């Protein structure tokens, strides 16, 4: 079984999955649980036991049950878990600090912070999520991290006074630091699909969310492309019902 869960970006993966031409081949083998929104993962949200991982926040527990039928993540199964959240930079990008500070390399009238300090900020910010990933490793549960869509730097939620260049730099350091951290843990990271963003890492307009006022999520087309990458990564592009589970468990 492939369990795709995490922040609200899981919704576009689910709608994208429904657009896959060979979707029927995966019937019953893929489950989706958007248990976000993302800020719920920024404070301690899980507990690890010898049997698996449970969610300590009621809303996460309920939504996970709704999406998967499971109370929590069971270490005794052969499921593969695809988790979306550890590369979501929005919490950092929306912080008012950026009205007074600039990320490394951005020289404006604000106080520029160093790369080392910025990396520490990122690691601190994502610490509950890093701990969550470590729990998978400690319990020997298969897990892959998937990126959400590239940021839209015209997002009105982002720190008001930070320039587009500053926003881009925050996003860049955030992603690079977390990818390095996750890969150092021994987990794979599936990035946004090639061709979905421009040279400035901006999500291309054709992948903007169907609702115009949603600056944060991508649409189903983006979800479909990313689902293809996820499935390709797992090596299950031609699964048949009998082989499906075994293939997904590789």
């Amino acid at each position, binding site marked *: 079984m492939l369990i795709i869960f995490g922040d609200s970006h899981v919704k576009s993966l689910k709608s994208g999955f429904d657009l896959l031409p060979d979707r029927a081949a995966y019937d019953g083998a893929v489950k989706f649980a958007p248990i976000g929104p993302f800020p719920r993962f920024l404070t301690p949200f899980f507990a690890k036991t010898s049997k698996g991982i449970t969610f300590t926040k009621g809303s996460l527990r309920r939504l996970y049950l709704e999406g998967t039928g499971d109370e929590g993540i069971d270490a005794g199964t052969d499921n593969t878990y695809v988790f979306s959240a550890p590369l979501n930079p929005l919490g950092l990008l929306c912080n008012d*600090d950026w009205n*007074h500070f600039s990320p*490394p390399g951005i*020289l404006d009238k604000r106080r520029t912070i160093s790369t080392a*300090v910025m990396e520490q*900020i990122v690691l*601190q*910010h994502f610490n509950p999520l890093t701990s969550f990933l470590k729990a998978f490793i400690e319990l020997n549960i298969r897990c892959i991290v998937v990126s959400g869509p590239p940021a839209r730097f015209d997002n009105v939620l982002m720190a008001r006074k930070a320039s587009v260049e500053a926003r881009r730099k925050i996003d860049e350091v955030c992603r690079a630091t977390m990818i390095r951290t996750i890969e150092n843990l021994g987990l794979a990271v599936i990035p946004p699909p090639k061709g979905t963003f421009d040279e400035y890492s901006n999500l291309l307009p054709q992948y903007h969310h169907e609702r115009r006022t949603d600056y944060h999520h991508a649409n189903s087309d983006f979800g479909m492309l990313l689902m293809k990458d996820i499935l390709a990564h797992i090596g299950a592009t031609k699964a048949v019902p009998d082989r499906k589970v075994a293939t997904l468990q590789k």
Partner: protein
Amino acid sequence: MGPNPYQNLPVRNYWRQGVASASPFEWRDLYSKKFDISTKTRVSCAGSCFAQHVGRHLRDRGFNYQDFEPAPSLLEGSELRHKYGYEIYSARFGNIYTARQLRQLFLRASGKFVPSEQVWEQDGRFYDPFRPAVEPEGFASLAEFKAAQELHFSAVRHMARRTDLLVFTLGLTEAWVSRTDGSVYPMCPGTHAGVFDADKYEFKNFSYSEILADMKWVVAYLTRINPRLKLLLTVSPVPLVATATNKHVLVATTYSKSVLRAVAGTLSDEFDFIDYFPSYEIISAPATRGFFYDPNLRTVTDAGVTFVMRHFFSEHGTGESPSAPTPETKMQSNLAKLEVVCEEEILASFSTVG
């Protein structure tokens, strides 16, 4: 025996009554303020490690403590902030151990002195020779280093203009300087960062007259741009970790502290806007039998710091008596003590003696 000046003096004037037969916790009148420090007084702190205690206590007591180079709020927790030089002093100076270092800082910040060696590059990282500990892993690029340096200088200039009271703790007489232009370093090159080269760097043990001249330069510089500025001087009671002289470290420490104490006394006697607070005496007096020191006989216990600051606050604002610290304040202080940053301590790791 006829009348003489030693008759009928206050108890504090007699060693036996004032010190020897009194519990240190009952000492009185060790310090009489020269001027008031109100909660509106903008206070900045700089100096050697012990100044961190003074700054922290002032901040905790609601004094108007200034931070001209604050940490981003996203960087959470004092341990991490201190690691990167934030919230230790009123700007990211790192420790300013010598008077020459303080003078040099103002000269550099105002563009009047540019050291021949401004940055140390090592393994692709860039270290600030004059505050190597504020970025322990070094800066990622030369541009990043320069941006941080300019930001720091701007903070120093702001501090000079917008401070009503500068608390400065004199720490050391010993330092390492550049043979080329006399630049003085807080740490010996090759310890925290850089590479030691005897052809480039030399040891310097500053004399009383040199330190007095440096401090007078600082006083003149600051009061010219900020005529209302007052100074509160302290001398660090923390002994040297190691000496580079050919003397025993105890002898070198005594020399160093004596010289610094004499400079502070001279300045305090000469200028009505400079006060001296005797934290050094309170901690290191023989009557306290070293019990304000940690087992290493060097760093000051939390109880000692709290005790010292009670003497300070008995004169400034809160009106409390300088009695023994309560268990509660000891505990609070213990937590805070963990965060004191003393770069000089790295020197102990170079001892080859077990």
